[in-house]
């Protein structure tokens, strides 16, 4: 098989046991876990984290009621 081709899985020699989890998977898992943890901490500590925190009626204590429209 052409080693330059990346559109098909590589050939694998026979292995008696399943391969160990690659280091890059563990590293990426740690990074993503830290990101998720940071988001959870932000959400718990700060309430709503998106633009909804400024939207009235969204349940956030930071929400502000819009002024009544005075169209004439």
């Amino acid at each position, binding site marked *: 098989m052409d080693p330059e081709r990346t*559109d098909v*899985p590589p050939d694998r020699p026979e292995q008696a046991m399943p391969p160990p989890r*690659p280091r890059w998977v563990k590293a990426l898992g740690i990074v993503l876990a830290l990101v998720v943890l940071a988001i959870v901490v932000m959400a718990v500590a700060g309430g709503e984290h998106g633009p909804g925190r400024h*939207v009235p009626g969204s349940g956030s204590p930071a929400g502000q009621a819009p002024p009544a429209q005075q169209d004439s």
Partner: protein
Amino acid sequence: MKPAVRKLALSAHLTVSVGWIGAVIAYLSLGFAAVSTDDTETVRAAWIAMEITGWFVLVPLAITSLLTGVLMALGTKWGLFRHYWVLISFFLTLFATVVLVLHMPTVTKTVVVAKQVEGAALEALGGDLFHPSIGLVILLIVQVLNIYKPQGMTRYGWRKEHSERRP
């Protein structure tokens, strides 16, 4: 999957996936415009444009990217659960799509408020930079995984390959 069909599916997947990344960057530019100007009409226009871009570009691209990705995985020898880069790409894309779909109603509500308020209240709406920024990082991780396809077979993939190789 036949080669011609596979290439068509791959073309579709690449188009919508890279298009999704471009649309997120465009969405972010609107958000930055909203936070960097004092002009009321510009802020409102940016938010209205973000809502339209979100519902009519980002959401369709995200769903299509997810579906074509699954189609590509299941229709080729890579499979959906056999290789870590495919598995992680799938779950990150699924996560990004779900968060996007759940987030857009908040954007719509914010646009309603943006059309009504002025001054400090309008400024307080910000520019919705958090979600698309995280989303962009996730999409770039998925893109890198899809290009480099780092080696690593899951236990399931290893078992499947061994069972397929047995005479």
